[in-house]
């Protein structure tokens, strides 16, 4: 697990899903079971933007890039930070 995945996973489980019994793994679909609501998605995007050091345009917020913690890290943290 990369540092970026680890850091994002910690934020998702400790902050966003603090009130959930279930916890996410790097490959857990985040949007299938209503875990992430309309407020949490904004917190998630804000966290990723701070970590990435840049804004994420709305048109890049698509399921192919946002399905799991692993995919978010790969698409916005590992690539953008290089």
């Amino acid at each position: 697990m990369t540092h970026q995945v680890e850091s994002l996973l910690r934020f998702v489980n400790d902050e966003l899903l603090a009130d959930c019994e279930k916890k996410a793994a790097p490959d857990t679909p985040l949007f299938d079971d209503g875990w992430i609501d309309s407020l949490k998605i904004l917190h998630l995007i804000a966290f990723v933007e701070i970590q990435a050091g840049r804004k994420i345009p709305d048109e890049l917020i698509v399921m192919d890039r946002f399905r799991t913690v692993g995919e978010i890290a790969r698409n916005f943290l590992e690539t953008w930070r290089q």
Partner: protein
Amino acid sequence: MATVISISHVHEPDADLWISAEGLPRLSGAAAALLWALDDKFRNAALLTGAEERRFPTLIAEDVLERSEYFAAFPGCASRVTSPRPGDNHFLSPAVCYHCYDMLKDRILANNVAFTCCGTCFRSDVRDGTHLWDFTMREVVFLGSAEFVQRQREVWMTKATRFARGLHLDASLAPANDPFFGAGNRGRKLLQSLKQLKYELSVPLHSRGSTPIASFNLHERFFTNRFQISLATGEPAHSGCVAFGLERWCMALLAREAATAALARVEEHDDLR
């Protein structure tokens, strides 16, 4: 490249389909028959898939729209009715499917269910010749398991796209990003877009871009939570709907050919079955 269709003729007083400056449509002759021929196709296709038909009032109670969060999602779009009776708080229905959720409120669904309904709907959107204040909507509404609702939407997206293209419409199916149910803030809009809860079938009806003629919507548990509609397992049901704007279908067809030719084309097509 898409052909941009002129709709300027719809404002000519003797047009088969005439639209007033207030966004009120009037259909004459073969154009009126065209609207009901289209509706017949959608209705019959829905009945063939097992949907039950329902007829709902044109008026809808304020508390049903309130519970649906309509006023928050679409501020200023609802048309209030003035009643001679004090205490009546009703609006002209902005969509037919809200009646379905109200009809099923506090119910437990033993099985997956589908309903089809047609009604006049009213939305005070921007008027540009395609956004009508008063229009006719045929809907198919699904309630049940998430898999059932998603499958129904898939089936209808395929059927409707094939049907439109069979009528020689330059129709394209794509996820929609405009406000939808409960879409009052950025978070909800992003979730809707991310989860592709809404697709639209659109045609290039005017020079500024394409115009939706049908929408295919997943509501997840939005309405069933608010109207307390459950599955036998005790969990809230999922819901979804498919909506066809009949005047827009007519506008798209009449922009291409005369009403009699369009009517004949619709009547001979069986692609929705």
